[in-house]
């Protein structure tokens, strides 16, 4: 079926130039089927492990995920036929696995079921994916809306200040029983703005300005707006106490500046600002100081006789997984307690799928990022390149910040594991990122001229 599909699409496009790259939509379909089957298998494995029976909703879950994935696939086939065939299957598999893990944790927290809501959010996410892929015919259109994007991003970032803090962070807004994290959407909008702005001003940024000890610094005129917006967003985030997102924005900003200008001076400025910011925040915010203390001494609360803290429980969960894991549904990650389905979802994966499963998940993310970078390399317009790199970097940085946090590599900052973690805004945003990457990679491969392999 795969071959037939590929064959027909290629045949239909017969008059195209010989240099045109194969579309590979059949491979995408096959991989999507595999991803859905893997998710259904995980779902059944959880049921068999916990209740010795295939869970009653297995068919419905598989059918729902399958229909969503097929609709997305059809959209891609119709509106972005040259898109990278790996992006969509990776999104489906990670989202399916996330649903399995949340369902598995729901079984041990019957009072707080999150999987149904997550399925609804995933549906919304896929719907947004379809809308973006179908409506956005060319990514360059976005360049026109750069300042709309940044205004929207700032509004979204400031909105939660008006709502009460939840669990120490002021990043949620509650509307009609749904809690939404507007900062999640803001990061895509900011990436679009950064890409557009840097693409327009990159010559000025790269080649003007003065030189201080072999490092070339840009002029204040072009730097001003960018730094102002960046400072504003970081201030807002510190006020809202969402350090993970703050770190993500900062990293995104530095990476995109570096790619746009190629100036190592940006990295120096970035590191300097990061160090200053970290020291200042660490001094001012007891909340942050406590996080750093937890990171350096995860077992301090045990020694103090207060039992293991969240990070210690998370480390215990990873350790219990070992090489091969306990098997889905057989671990004890609910011991982590609060945020086990969101920030700490990776601990469940680590315990029940082991180092092997965890590595596979990391490699899926790495592949997603790699496909984004590859699309960026293949494109010829600076905006598209920067957008692809920015979107891929959002995923990479976000995975690093939260995965590094729960495994004790860096201080823990609350953030959602893309696609895996419970959280509607996050899932919807990640589907938007995949949609934009699909659109960008479609352009990249459509204009393929045989020089750089996309």
């Amino acid at each position, binding site marked *: 079926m795969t071959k037939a599909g590929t064959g027909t699409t290629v045949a239909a496009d017969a008059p195209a130039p010989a240099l045109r790259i194969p579309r590979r939509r059949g491979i995408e379909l096959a991989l999507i089927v595999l991803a859905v089957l893997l998710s259904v298998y995980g779902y059944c494995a959880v049921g068999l492990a916990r209740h010795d029976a295939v869970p009653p909703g297995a068919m419905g879950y598989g059918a729902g995920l399958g229909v969503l994935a097929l609709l997305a696939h059809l959209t891609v086939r119709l509106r972005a036929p040259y898109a990278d065939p790996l992006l969509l299957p990776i999104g489906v598999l990670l989202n399916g696995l996330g649903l399995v893990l949340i369902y598995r944790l729901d079984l041990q927290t019957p009072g707080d079921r999150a999987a149904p809501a997550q399925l609804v959010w995933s549906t919304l996410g896929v719907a947004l994916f379809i809308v973006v892929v179908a409506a956005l015919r060319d990514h360059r259109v976005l360049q026109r809306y750069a300042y709309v994007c940044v205004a929207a991003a700032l509004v979204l970032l400031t909105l939660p200040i008006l709502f009460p803090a939840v669990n120490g962070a002021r990043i949620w807004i509650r509307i009609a029983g749904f809690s939404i994290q507007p900062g999640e959407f803001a990061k895509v909008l900011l990436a679009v703005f950064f890409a557009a702005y840097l693409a327009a001003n990159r010559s000025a940024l790269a080649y003007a300005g003065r030189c201080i000890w072999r490092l070339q610094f840009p002029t204040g005129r072009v730097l001003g707006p960018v730094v102002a917006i960046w400072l504003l967003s970081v201030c807002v985030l510190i006020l809202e106490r969402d350090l993970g997102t703050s770190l993500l924005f900062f990293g995104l900003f530095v*990476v995109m500046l*570096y*790619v*746009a200008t*190629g100036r190592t001076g940006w990295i120096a400025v970035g590191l300097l600002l990061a160090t200053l910011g970290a020291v200042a925040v660490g001094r001012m915010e007891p909340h942050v100081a406590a996080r750093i203390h937890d990171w350096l001494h995860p*077992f301090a609360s*045990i020694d103090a006789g207060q*039992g*293991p803290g969240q990070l*210690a429980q998370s*480390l*215990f969960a*990873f*350790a*219990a*997984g*070992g*090489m091969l894991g*306990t098997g889905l549904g057989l671990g*004890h990650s609910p*011991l982590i307690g609060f945020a086990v389905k969101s920030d700490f979802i990776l601990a469940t994966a*680590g315990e029940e799928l*082991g*180092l092997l499963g*965890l*590595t596979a998940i*990391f490699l899926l993310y*790495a592949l997603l*990022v*790699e496909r984004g*970078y590859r699309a*960026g*390399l293949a494109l010829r317009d*600076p905006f598209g*390149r920067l957008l692809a*790199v920015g979107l*891929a*970097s959002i995923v*990479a*940085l976000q*995975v*690093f910040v939260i*995965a*590094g946090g729960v*495994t*004790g*590599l860096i201080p823990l900052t609350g953030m959602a594991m893309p696609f895996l973690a419970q959280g509607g805004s996050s899932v919807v945003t990640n589907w938007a990122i995949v949609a934009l990457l699909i659109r960008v990679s479609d352009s990249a491969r459509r204009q393929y001229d045989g020089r*750089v392999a996309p």
Partner: protein
Amino acid sequence: MTRHIRNAAAFCALLLVALLLNASRIQVVQAPAYDDNPANRRQSIARYGQPRGDILVGGRPVTGSEDTGEQLRYERTYANGPLYAPVTGFASQEYGTSFLEHAEDGTLSGTDPMLSPFPLWSDLTRAQNPGGDVVTTLDAAAQQAAYKGLGARTGAVAALEPATGRILALVSTPSYDPESLSGNGPSVTRSWLGLNEDPARPMLNRAARQTYPPGSTFKVVTAAAALDAGVIRHVDRPTRSPDPYVLPGTTTPLRNAAEGCRNASLRVAFERSCNTVFAKLGVDVGVTGMAATAQAFGFNDPGLRIPYPVSPSSFDTRVDRAQLALSSIGQYNTRATPLQMAMVSAAVANRGQLREPYLVERTTTNRGATVFTAGARPVRQAMLPSTAARLRELMRGVVEDGTGTNAAIPGATVGGKTGTAQHGIGNTGVPYAWFVSWAQAEDELEPRVAVAVVVEEDAAAHRGHISGAGVAAPIARAVMAAVLRS
């Protein structure tokens, strides 16, 4: 720009490598340390996630497991807790384990690798073995008889099979129900504190973990030493001992409760329990000979396990002659567990051969396949066979026409020795009533059971009435009769 995109990609690859290395560090390198961290509940959850194996007496489990549905799922139950408490001990989620529950924990909890048919495969799949069972040597009827015999009194009974060393009964009163410690939570904490603060000390295993002055029952050991050393050659010849006997090097006279001890023969002295004769015999044997015989019976041995450790009984080897005289009649620093005195009686009954006592006959998997069998235990010649034969005669005399007639069983040969041990400063403490004995059915070739009984009398009003013959001998008789019937 292309080069910078590649550099940024390389940076992302670096982040990936850092994540993978760190994950390996935690999940492989540090994992054993994290798994064993006492704050990590996973081992407890796994341990209590399956029913614990059972402890069997006479083929029937005396323990069980109850599914509580809590995080630590299974809790221990006991069919007849107080009766078997000195054997089973407790298995608490809060306070650990004791006695057999502790010594056989690997089998009962299923962690013993021997329980697994394919240990390597089990390691790989992390399969947990179901808990195995522990089959004890106890005789349910003897245990019941001993517990009933002690009743409301404070005391202990130990009974052995002389030819093998199998422990047939091990009872301590007052007792407690170990089930009250099984779970976790405030009620268990309350029980634990209550039991520990109880002045009657119900959690004390008096049969194996408490030593008492053995009093006159120790005269069996002194007689064996005297016969082995050749100090006495004929049990019916006068021993040339005065009454009262002045302790050597002092002016303190030692007297008897009984009449006719002056110059009495060993047989008469044994039947009447003459202090003067045995004090002099001990001194005549000397400290080296006395210590050698006492140690051959198991005194001063801190290494005895049944399989849980038994408190060592003691015979002081650094004594002057006056102290040796007192030690030889079971006073001064001589102390023995009831189990130790049962071993003394068993050695006499088994031609001078002492078999190390044990409680666990075998352990099995939950399906009944044998994992471990006790097999033949080490044997030690505690005294010459001829000495043992003479002592059996002397002990029979005690029951047939001496101080121990209360222990006689129709249709069986019974030998015994009474004892009433004084203790406390100036002997102000309540005396302990002792009785050690063995019994052989008429139609059998060798004695089937050896028993030691000790009773602490707690009411001062009973002073003067307490004696091995009156209180302890009937209990011993009931236990022996129960064994002979079965």
